[in-house]
């Protein structure tokens, strides 16, 4: 007779305690290492030498931090927009009935890889290509086009946007494919049958149906770029004004700032991300309703 089968007794008690032990352990871990650090940041952001103060939050309005906020939001929006447009176009192209199956699986697998290919290696891939000494930069210079003289720099917001597109476009492709697949062939046929042009179909039927999914995807992409640290750091060696870079500069003591400034910046980022997620889940609930 197996020991646990003993009714009542130790086995039954263990059987009731073990599940709650593991659930409790997980929740305790989350509370200690995810929730508590976040709360500490929030508290630190409003605590000075003499207790409660809003001075650190107010100092986020200083020119330096305002620029960082602006840059982060511009970079996140621009790269999300580029990802949104090209990701959707590529997804639409491979979902055409004429697209061969092998092409579809290559694009899908490559998206899975490149949406996870980011950070330091991605930065060096673009430095090798479009950096000041990158091959494409040098090649273009040979044919008389000096892109750096024309105002492009890989180490600026436009360069970062281009680099971010390398993971934003595949991310969009993965996120939006189910929504595009959800567009019924019959809708297109009905619209064609009634004499509508392709443009009319997209303007009046396709895009309005996709709109909530597109907005949700935009927010997801925005969030992934907004909190990105590794790629911009490796690309610019920390010499660009972004929220994530500023926080790390405070943390590593590279700039003379109070730790409360870092906490206030972090709290600000969390606030923006929370807002993004709330709107995202509202939109997702809407698309889910549509699909039913």
């Amino acid at each position: 007779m197996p020991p646990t089968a003993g009714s009542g007794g130790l086995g039954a008690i263990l059987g009731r305690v073990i599940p709650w032990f593991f659930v409790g352990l997980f929740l305790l871990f989350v509370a200690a290492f995810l929730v508590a650090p976040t709360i500490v940041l929030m508290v630190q952001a409003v605590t000075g030498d003499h207790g409660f103060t809003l001075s650190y939050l107010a100092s986020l309005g200083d020119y330096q931090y305002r620029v960082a906020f602006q840059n982060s939001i511009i970079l996140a929006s621009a790269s999300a927009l580029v990802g949104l447009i090209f990701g959707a176009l590529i997804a639409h192209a491979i979902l055409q009935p004429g697209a061969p199956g092998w092409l579809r699986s290559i694009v899908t697998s490559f998206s899975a890889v490149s949406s996870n290919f980011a950070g330091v290696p991605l930065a060096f891939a673009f430095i090798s290509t479009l950096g000041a000494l990158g091959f494409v930069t040098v090649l273009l210079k040979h044919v008389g086009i000096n892109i750096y003289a024309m105002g492009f720099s890989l180490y600026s917001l436009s360069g970062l946007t281009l680099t971010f597109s390398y993971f934003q476009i595949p991310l969009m492709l993965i996120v939006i494919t189910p929504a595009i697949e959800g567009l019924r062939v019959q809708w297109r046929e009905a619209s064609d049958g009634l004499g509508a042009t392709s443009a009319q179909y997209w303007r009046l039927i396709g895009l309005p149906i996709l709109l909530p999914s597109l907005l949700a995807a935009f927010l997801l992409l925005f969030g992934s770029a907004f909190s990105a640290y590794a790629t911009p750091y490796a690309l610019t060696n920390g010499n660009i004004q972004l929220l994530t870079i500023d926080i790390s500069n405070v943390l590593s003591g590279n700039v003379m700032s109070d730790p409360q400034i870092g906490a206030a910046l972090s709290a600000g980022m969390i606030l923006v991300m929370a807002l993004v997620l709330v709107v995202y889940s509202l939109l997702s609930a809407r698309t889910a309703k549509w699909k039913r």
Partner: protein
Amino acid sequence: MSATTSAVSVPTGATRVRKPRLGLSSTIILILAAIFFLVPLIMTGIFSLWEGGNTYGFSAYVLMLHTSGFWYSFFLSLRLAVETILLSFVLLVPAMIFVHLKAPQLRPLFEFISTLPFVIPAIALIDGLTTLYTGPSWLISTPNYLVIPYFFLALPYGFRALDVGLMTLDVKTLTEAGQSLGAGWGRIIFLLLLPNLTTALIGATLLTLTIVMGEFTFASVLLFHTFAVFINDTGQNAITEAAALSLFSFVITWLFMLGVLLTGRRNAATVGGAH
């Protein structure tokens, strides 16, 4: 007989010709996409072979393999990835199983928790962790400390994979059957539930491996020399070696993600990790 076969095969051939072709605009978009995505990889490849002037060769790769930092950081990242996966197996897997089984009312809470790593950016989390924990030194002074933030980095994927896996399994019936046969929790989890969750777990495991191998933010701020930190340091003075390392890193990502795709979980390979 042969005449009939050929007579039948002609119409099939004809329908194949009539099959819709890919439109011009779609073709152009796909060609542009191929250029955008392949050129940086090809250029990185060429750059990694450049030996100055007009000479090309494999010296960057040879040098890469002979640098002690390469092997140290590579195995450190690999070890941290394995530790992160083990921690997920101890903390997340049993908790998820019991929530599905005993406390479905807690599932929304778990779902909420699994979105928190998205809301709290890595750099903010590390800010909070360093503010809150200044000791004990056995915890914070070894690279193993990184396993804690890595666990949260991997949490959304682990949660999603397990949640989907457990939803499709009839956990309750399986467990009751096990219990009526006298099996304890250990046996039910190890012999009954885990084997049925294999695909879900392999997908989540490979994704965790990919994310941890490329993670830079936590390690760099906490000054631990993981693989991504090593690549970045190399890039400060040896750009061709950094290109070789970047390509190597891409191949690793490729192999792991191929594994994720081959295990057949299309949805496991969603939102990317450490950007």
